[in-house]
């Protein structure tokens, strides 16, 4: 019997889809021997988020902790709070986002347990699969009896739990004081009204080949035609063509759209690990030997500066 606590990710108003995916991972655990799945929501003024969490199918209870010092997603405050709330649970999970990766290991250390990053499959209550070496190897890991299991769930590996649940929302008082040593200054979001890179069904990405921020408008233009989100390689981010939150790969976002279109991206292993779970990968590159063609479902050897305008024309 498992008793699982999931740390919800949200922006104050909306539950991040990574949470519903973590619920699916939790259900894969309770499928082996039963158990309950609860969600912990930390924030300030999070009743709406708690309601969204309680509507997820398979959720038993939502623990909502409101406190001013929990408004910002600081690990210094959320980590100790998660560790305190975890008391009595067999498993503590969080989505493997930058938030989950920041907070969960902190809480695990306070609980005196090791943690598993990026759980991609469940083989038993205490047995999992996770990627290592940028996804070049998948390792079976099992956690011996006696230790609480703490882990992050690799969002691209799990489908989101559906809605229609009716978990009970319980108010839970904060157990920890504000950490005085860490202060939140602010978030500079790239934002925009394009679809979210992590959840969009179609993603158009550009690489170093774009050559400039201005030329990247080609990628934006095609993405807008397709209603797609926009991604990029590390080289394109490093060169300043696009902001960091658009990086796809081992150290950027791991995504699983239905359709991924890569223009002028060579296909380095660190990039490929971010797109392995895409339904269909399309690659356009002028080098026929580019490694991206080894993983592409549909490849075209060509110059992106001519292919993209033609593509748009063919669409209309």
């Amino acid at each position, binding site marked *: 019997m498992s008793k699982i606590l999931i740390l919800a990710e949200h922006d104050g108003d909306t539950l991040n889809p990574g949470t519903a995916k973590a619920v699916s991972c939790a259900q894969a655990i309770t499928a082996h021997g039963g158990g309950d799945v609860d969600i912990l929501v930390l924030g300030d003024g999070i009743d709406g988020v708690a309601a969204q969490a309680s509507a997820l199918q398979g959720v038993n209870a939502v623990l909502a902790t409101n406190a001013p010092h929990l408004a910002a997603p*600081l*690990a*210094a405050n959320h*980590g100790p709070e998660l560790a305190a709330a975890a008391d009595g649970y067999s498993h503590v999970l969080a989505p493997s*986002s*930058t938030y989950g990766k*920041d*907070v969960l*290991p*902190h*809480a695990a*250390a306070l609980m*005196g347990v*090791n*943690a598993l*990053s990026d759980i991609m499959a469940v083989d038993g209550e205490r047995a999992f699969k996770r*990627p*290592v*070496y940028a996804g*070049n*190897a*998948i*390792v079976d*890991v*099992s*956690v*011996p009896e006696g*230790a609480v299991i703490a882990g992050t769930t690799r969002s691209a590996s799990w489908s989101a739990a559906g809605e229609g649940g009716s978990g009970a929302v319980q108010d839970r008082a904060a157990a920890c004081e504000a*950490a*005085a*040593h*860490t*202060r939140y*200054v*602010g*978030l*500079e979001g*790239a934002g925009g009204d394009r679809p979210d890179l992590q959840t969009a069904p179609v993603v158009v990405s550009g690489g170093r080949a774009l050559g400039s921020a201005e030329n990247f408008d080609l990628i934006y233009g095609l993405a807008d035609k397709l209603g797609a989100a926009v991604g990029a390689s*590390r080289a394109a*981010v*490093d060169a300043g063509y696009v902001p*960091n*939150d658009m990086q796809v790969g*081992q*150290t950027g976002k791991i995504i699983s759209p239905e*359709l991924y279109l890569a223009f002028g991206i060579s296909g380095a292993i*660190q990039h490929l690990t971010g797109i*392995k779970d895409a339904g269909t*990968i399309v690659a356009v590159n002028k080098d026929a030997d580019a490694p991206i*063609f080894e*993983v592409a*479902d*549909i*490849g*075209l050897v*060509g110059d992106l500066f*001519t*292919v993209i305008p*033609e593509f748009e024309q*063919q669409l209309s």
Partner: protein
Amino acid sequence: MKILVGIKRAVDYNVRVRVKSDGSGVETDGVKMSVNPFDEIALEEALRLKEAGKADEVIVVSIGPGDVQQQLRTGLAMGADRAIQVEAGDTLQPLTVAQVFKALAEREGAGIVFLGKQAIDDDSNQVGQMTAALWGRPQATFASKVSLNGETATVTREVDAGLETIEIDLPAVITSDLRLNEPRFVKLPDIMKAKRKPLDVIALDELGGVVGVAPEAGHHAPPEPRGRGIMVDDTAALVAELKNRGLV
């Protein structure tokens, strides 16, 4: 102020990693080993802080068997002042590594423990967070910009939603992201000089030993290969194929 920098010996990022045929791990025989790229970035930042007069000493630390001394020597050649090898078997869990950094931070009176955000072998991304938790000090993970202002640091962090800025009191743990800086190249004379810099060896038990229950790693498998794709001749054929598959 002293800065401790963690240096992990890892398979070089250019190597095509292969799973051993018996599934016991990945092939490391005859494979090029290097400093984990994120740790190199952390070290570079520490060295720049020292060069800017904001730190007095940079100490590189690696945990593992004798061969980690190669990576420590690389760190010394880049400019670290001295090195510490914590002698241990080579499969320590992040919690134990964090326990070591906490113990060393206290022993040395470090102002910053600077680590890479993740190691490119096990991709765990945990040690910095765990070190901060055990040490009871701030954590600033995934840093793309660090400025020190006396007793505090302002750190810009690469997060999913963009760039987050936090202010932390020192001492603290900072972990580097890719865009923090571009590490310097090591020059030959520096490699010679590095040979004369101090490298101390400490036993793991002296710093608290192994902590926590270790998850047991079992079988390793290569990832599921993607099916072989097709090549098309021109844009019209590409769009036709996508329309055919109902994707556009």
